[in-house]
């Protein structure tokens, strides 16, 4: 009975949302802000990837909020899961092939991750995507060899410093009399690696933070036992 009601209401939701969608002027987004940003962004931020300039420039504080959310989630997950007991049983090690390939994969993933992060202002990709790959880089060996303990101290150090770095770059502008998170440094030439002022630095901070955060989360989840 309840399922029937639920389905009925779900169908109702679909119907009404479609009714609303039918009112849209399909195919002609108003793009009041979007157009202006497209016009001004290359000059204002110097990033070829305009999404990046929006993410880190125009909506930089959103990104700050976002990494804070990720940080909070991992903090909360850590709080919820607690620390693992050292004597807890672990999964058996996986085979040698997997372990060796994991060792090979680690530097590769690291390089790819940093590449994506550092080219975030030029090509698609950036801190989030690169950060995920970094996390994977740290996590793959762990998966291959569950016995290894994660260096939580190191992770939290990176995590904290990267987050602080993002804010400090923002505050630097503030103390120079500009607005919080205002891009600093020379804009450089559009399309070059060293361009777009502080944006790549910000993306680096984001990438490191996301990477460390997610690696920590994964490691936490992967621990097979938690204290009661």
């Amino acid at each position, binding site marked *: 009975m309840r*399922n029937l009601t639920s*389905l009925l209401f779900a169908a109702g939701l679909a119907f009404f949302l479609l009714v609303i969608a039918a009112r849209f002027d399909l195919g002609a987004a108003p793009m009041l802000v979007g157009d202006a940003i497209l016009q001004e962004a290359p000059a204002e931020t110097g990033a070829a*990837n305009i*999404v*990046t300039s929006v993410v880190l420039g125009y909506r930089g504080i959103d990104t700050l909020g976002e990494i804070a959310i990720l940080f909070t989630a991992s903090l909360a997950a850590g709080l919820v899961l607690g620390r693992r007991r050292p004597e807890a049983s672990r999964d058996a090690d996986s085979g040698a092939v997997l372990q060796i390939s994991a060792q090979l994969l680690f530097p590769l993933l690291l390089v790819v991750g940093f590449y994506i992060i550092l080219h975030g202002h030029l090509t*698609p*990709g*950036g801190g*989030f*995507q690169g950060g*995920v*790959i970094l*996390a*994977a880089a740290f*996590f793959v060996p762990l998966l291959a060899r569950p016995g290894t303990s994660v260096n939580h101290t190191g992770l939290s150090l990176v995590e904290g410093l990267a987050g602080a770095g993002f804010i400090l770059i923002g505050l630097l502008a503030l103390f120079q009399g500009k607005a919080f998170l205002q891009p600093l440094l020379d804009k450089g030439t559009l399309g070059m690696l060293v361009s777009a002022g502080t944006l790549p630095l910000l993306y680096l901070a984001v990438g490191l933070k996301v990477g460390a955060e*997610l690696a920590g*989360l*994964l490691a936490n*989840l*992967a621990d*097979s036992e938690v204290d009661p």
Partner: protein
Amino acid sequence: MIWLLGLLIGMMLAAAIAVLVLENHIAAVAATSIVSLALSVVFVLLRAPDVAMTEAAVGAGLSSLILALSLRRLGLWQIEGDKHPEIAKEGVDA
């Protein structure tokens, strides 16, 4: 191209329904990542490469990893899905 989009979206919706209907949890997780993957291709077609990359890395990759890990922690990592028949049965009653 619209046919491709139609195909992808159809696949996405089908996978989404499969998430709710499939009895096996691993299959459900797999279906979720299919949704994400299809979505990321849709994003590419919608000229959103950044979003596509993120969706692929986060939605299809990381999120599936997290789900799989927690499946293991929850003791639901059964291919046949017969160890906890009552949960599997009650999983969805659509």
